[in-house]
């Protein structure tokens, strides 16, 4: 029993079980969701949340925290619904510049030894401001191609699930299997030893931030693909959702201990929690509160399971 699951596997196993239990509860409450269309509706908004959660996870892997995630995804969504739709080249340029800004933030935070929380807090104003300038009132239109991708109906499983699995696998390959992934988790774990091993920490941090920006932009693009329009506040709740998703998925704030697969599962769990509550017919007043309660419950379960695992290890 002891050797059956490694610590890394457990990190993913517990979130996966929470998701399975929640899904089971939803199926029990509303059997009609146990279908292609039902699942599609349940996980409809999961893809952008999963991408934003992965972006947050990358930042958390180097011991930072991005409080501008929601504002940045909203900004990316606004660019997608305007420039990327009407002038694709200009749109791509703007998004590329945004990635460069993120890389620059990584450099400034590293060189000046600044708290990432505060810098990203300031940046959240900047991104929101830019988003308001681009789209003063809700509107815009989704580019045809992204609309087509997001509404494609693959056989067997709905798009949201296929895409989530695909995203999880790609992120897993980048973060857990590539050399950049190893070094960036190393920076979170022990920055000095990575430095002494001859790596440039500032470069790794810049690349991590740039990579996070790419994931966040994809979140914005996919969100517009689903909603077909954007507004400057479209993704503001993603800041807190993405942090919660990473934690639910077994990630930790320090030490470079993150799990891309877990993060995607965490994002799916959060998406499902909202549907679950509406099936429970909880009064709308308490919907948000119940979401908080679910978060607490899942973390409590994780604590119990982790404790049991630790006991078995010791035995």
């Amino acid at each position, binding site marked *: 029993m002891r050797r059956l699951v490694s610590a890394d596997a457990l990190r993913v196993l517990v979130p996966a079980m929470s998701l399975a239990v929640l899904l089971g509860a939803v199926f029990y409450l509303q059997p009609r969701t146990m279908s292609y269309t039902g699942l599609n509706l349940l996980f409809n908004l999961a893809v952008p949340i999963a991408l934003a959660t992965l972006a947050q996870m990358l930042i958390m892997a180097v011991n930072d*925290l991005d*409080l501008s995630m929601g504002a940045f995804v909203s900004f990316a969504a606004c660019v997608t619904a305007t420039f990327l739709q009407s002038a694709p080249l200009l749109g791509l340029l703007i998004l590329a510049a945004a990635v460069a800004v993120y890389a620059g933030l990584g450099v*400034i935070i590293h060189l*000046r*030894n*600044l*708290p990432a*929380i*505060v*810098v990203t*807090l*300031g*940046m*959240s*104003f*900047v*991104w*929101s*401001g*830019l*988003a*308001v*300038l681009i789209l*003063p009132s809700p509107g815009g239109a989704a580019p045809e191609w992204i609309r087509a991708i997001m509404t494609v109906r693959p056989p067997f499983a709905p798009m949201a699930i296929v895409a989530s699995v695909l995203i999880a696998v790609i992120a897993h390959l980048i973060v857990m299997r590539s050399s950049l992934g190893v070094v960036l988790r190393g920076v979170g774990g022990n920055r000095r030893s990575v430095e002494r091993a001859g790596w440039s920490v500032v470069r790794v941090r810049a690349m991590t931030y740039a990579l996070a920006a790419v994931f966040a932009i994809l979140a914005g693009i996919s969100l517009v693909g689903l909603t077909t329009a954007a507004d*400057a506040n479209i993704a503001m709740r993603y800041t*807190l959702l993405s*942090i*919660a998703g990473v*934690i639910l998925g077994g990630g*930790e*704030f*320090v030490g470079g201990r993150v799990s891309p697969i877990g993060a995607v599962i965490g994002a799916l769990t959060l998406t499902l929690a909202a549907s679950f509550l509406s099936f429970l017919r909880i*009064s709308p*007043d*308490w*919907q*948000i*509160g*119940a*979401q*908080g*309660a679910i*978060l*607490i419950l899942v*973390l*409590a379960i994780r*604590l119990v399971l982790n404790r049991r695992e630790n006991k078995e290890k010791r035995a």
Partner: protein
Amino acid sequence: MTALSRMPWIWSFLAAGIVWVITLMFTGGASIVGLTQATLTFAAFSVIVGTGQMFVITLGPGNIDLSIPATMTLAGTVALKLMGGDSGLIVPGFLVAIAIGLGVGVANYALIKLLRIPPIIATLAMSFIIQSAAIWSNRGLRIRPPEILGDFAIGSVLGVPNVAILALVVTVLAYVALEKSLYGRWILAIGQNIRAARMAGIPVDGVRCGTYVLCAVLASLGGYFLASFSGGAALNMGAEYLLMSIAVVVIGGTSVAGGDSNVPGIWGASLFMFLVVSMLNTYGFDAGFRMIMTGLIIIGVIVTAGGRTVRF
């Protein structure tokens, strides 16, 4: 220069002063009294909740209270509902607001301690529940505060707004607690090295719990007076204080890594934050541009004033 580096709060005051002068230059000094009073009033609320956040952040990396806005809203809503505009119930209303703060603080720390949830997630989950409670208790109607209380909240003594005086009292108490009391030494020690603090026999759990309670109580105090000041509680009244409470603490020179806090800096940073907004308003920029400028100014201040060396 060494004397200056020992006073990181000086930068926030300097920045606030510069913005104040620039704004007055634009208006030709016409609104000097109005601008100063408005700044003091609005900064006061940031100071009250920011002080609580500062104590929590001082506890060390990862300690942060995201439930401040929800606590403010719930305290303001329930207190105003209980008072129902009756001046005789001002004291009970106040006590209920404080009791809400006590409850939220204890619940926050219970989650952190018993479930070993990182504070950021614990207070976030808690804030969802508190916000729901506020929505449930609010139920539409906007109840006006009792007249005496409302007059107090918008009134002033010798030109100094009452809420600013209140915030000053909070600041002085916080300064004494932090610099002159055993409790203050304890939180600084915990923030610098929790393990060493525990081995030195400091009641770590008690101090941390007390700090989260203190932060929630200050948030409910802020909510009580903010609701009275604005003539009624609204469900989104605390929203802007989430980022504000963190921003004023850090711009004020408190270390995000914990164990090093700065009480005067909160005043400088709060004045600065409000002045920036009113300066950009005076110059007539539109909303988007104003936000971009606010963000860039925050980052600019951090880049110039921050960047201290990290202890290893």
